[in-house]
């Protein structure tokens, strides 16, 4: 039986469930135009600037990044710091995510609030708080001095450590939430079955629960790593001259030294590093999936 085609009023719509290509394009047109004007074109323009000269192309700015140990060191330090922050976030996030799947009602609400509050607290408020906490006369030094643990204040602010703590704090929710949702989909019976079959609680966790939650761990780690690579505000405020990172270096080149082509090349390197690491992450993720889930 043939169903007679309904006459449509919206462009050349072919079905009620699915809008026609032309109408769909019209709906997405503002979105696409916006992304082209304020995202694709600017980023493309910046990358173009890193290689183009009035009369041809040059690799001079990229070679400068490559040849000067200073810049490679900063790139390496940025990647290292992002890695350390990702690992620290994972170690702190997992117990919290796991606990969130165990508790109910009021405690679940309290824990969710604790995780979401820093997520939506302005990054400037958090940076200011870390300055207040870690300063020479800050909260932590005062508490330690009053309790007699130390006599001279510790130097904590404007160090790599303070940047690491502040960044881990900022990125922790991005790790907790995906791990939580992955853990939430694992039926509790699986761990119970493992216990029934003779596994201890620790063994049951490492052999059953942890492997099954790995997709969430990967998603969270990827998000944390990407965000850590591009962090600007926090390292600029709680870090010192010793903790220059890629993002702060790019900011310095544009706002203080006005060396745009070089800043563009640094942006290109940071962008390439980010995309490369995302690709590697994806690859290991798919490999792992192949091994673990057949």
């Amino acid at each position, binding site marked *: 039986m043939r169903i007679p085609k309904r006459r449509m009023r*919206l462009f050349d719509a072919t079905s009620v469930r699915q809008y026609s290509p032309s109408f769909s394009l019209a709906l997405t047109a503002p979105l696409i135009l916006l992304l082209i004007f304020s995202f694709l074109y600017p980023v493309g323009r910046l990358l173009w600037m890193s290689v183009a000269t009035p009369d041809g192309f040059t690799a001079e700015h990229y070679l400068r990044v490559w040849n000067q140990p200073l810049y490679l060191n900063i790139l390496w330090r940025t990647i290292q710091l992002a890695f350390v922050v990702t690992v620290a976030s994972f170690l702190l996030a997992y117990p919290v995510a796991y606990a969130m799947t165990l508790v109910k009602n009021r405690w679940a609400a309290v824990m969710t609030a*604790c*995780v979401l509050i820093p997520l939506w*607290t*302005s990054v400037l*408020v958090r940076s200011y708080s*870390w300055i*207040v906490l870690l300063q020479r006369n800050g909260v932590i030094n005062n508490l330690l001095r009053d309790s007699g643990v130390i006599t001279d204040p510790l130097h904590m602010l404007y160090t790599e450590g303070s940047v690491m703590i502040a960044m881990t704090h900022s990125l922790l929710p991005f790790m907790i939430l995906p791990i939580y949702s992955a853990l939430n989909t694992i039926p509790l019976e699986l761990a119970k079955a493992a216990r029934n079959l003779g596994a201890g609680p620790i063994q049951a966790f490492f052999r059953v629960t942890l492997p099954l939650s790995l997709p969430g761990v990967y998603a969270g780690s990827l998000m944390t790593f990407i965000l850590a690579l591009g962090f600007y505000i926090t390292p600029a405020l709680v870090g010192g001259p010793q903790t220059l990172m890629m993002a702060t270096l790019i*900011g310095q080149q544009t706002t203080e030294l006005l060396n745009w082509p070089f800043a563009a090349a640094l942006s290109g390197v940071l962008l390439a590093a980010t995309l490369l690491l995302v690709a590697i992450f994806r690859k290991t993720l798919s490999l792992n999936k192949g091994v673990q889930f057949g």
Partner: protein
Amino acid sequence: MADTSLPSRTMQLRRRSKAYFVESTLGPLIFASVVGLVLFFLVLPTLIVIPMSVGTASYIQFPPRGLTLKWYLDYFTDPDWMAATWFSLKIAFATTITSTIIGTLGSIALVRGKLPGKGFIQALTLSPMVVPHIVIAVAIYLVFAPVGLTGNFTGFLIAHTMLSVPYVIITVTAVLQRFDVTLELAALNCGASRPQAFWFIVLPNIMPGVAAGAVFAFLASFDEATVAFFISGINGKTITRKMFEDIDFNLTPIIAAVSTVLVIFTLVLMGGAQFLQSRKRN
């Protein structure tokens, strides 16, 4: 039977009690305290600004001595702070409207449309979240500065709409995928026109997701700091840029007062968004 088996069981339990104690009491206790410490670490920086904002000392002092609302008064009477606050609020409200409309239309096409290159458009929409914000910020400054889009409302509106739109798309796509199309078909069968069916059937059904997306878009714009750092001008300055400057050069307790106001403001909005999302689930 029960009388004879009971003592032997307790004996067994007693013999294993040390291991049993570790497993049943000590383990969970350590676990709970680790979780508690991490949660404390998460909320501490948000809450510490509240006591700092009411102390009388004009430098950072802990525990704060005295009780004053001077810093709040200073904030609310300082023309620079007020200008930055209103500028940020204006941008955030406008961004909410534009990104909600653009994002909702886009989501409808992405979920229900027969769109050529759908995968590419989807990837493009979410890519502002993958590209480091510093790169986006520098790139936007490079393109916006020569055409006079820095330090003013229009430039911020365009940049923030681009940064907020992914949030709207994520929440609206989620509700649209759950929406039952047969409801719309029923409305059409009953004689409704396409626009009528959309306005009276589809829109009310996806509204919780749209509203949650709008709240996220508002916060994403209001809290945005990296791009705002680059495209702010002397007159057109957001509250995030003003805070950055003051934290960097002029660390007074006014910042604690501003922070407290921001924290309370965001918590109220976030509570609203959570409420909308929980209603969506029911």
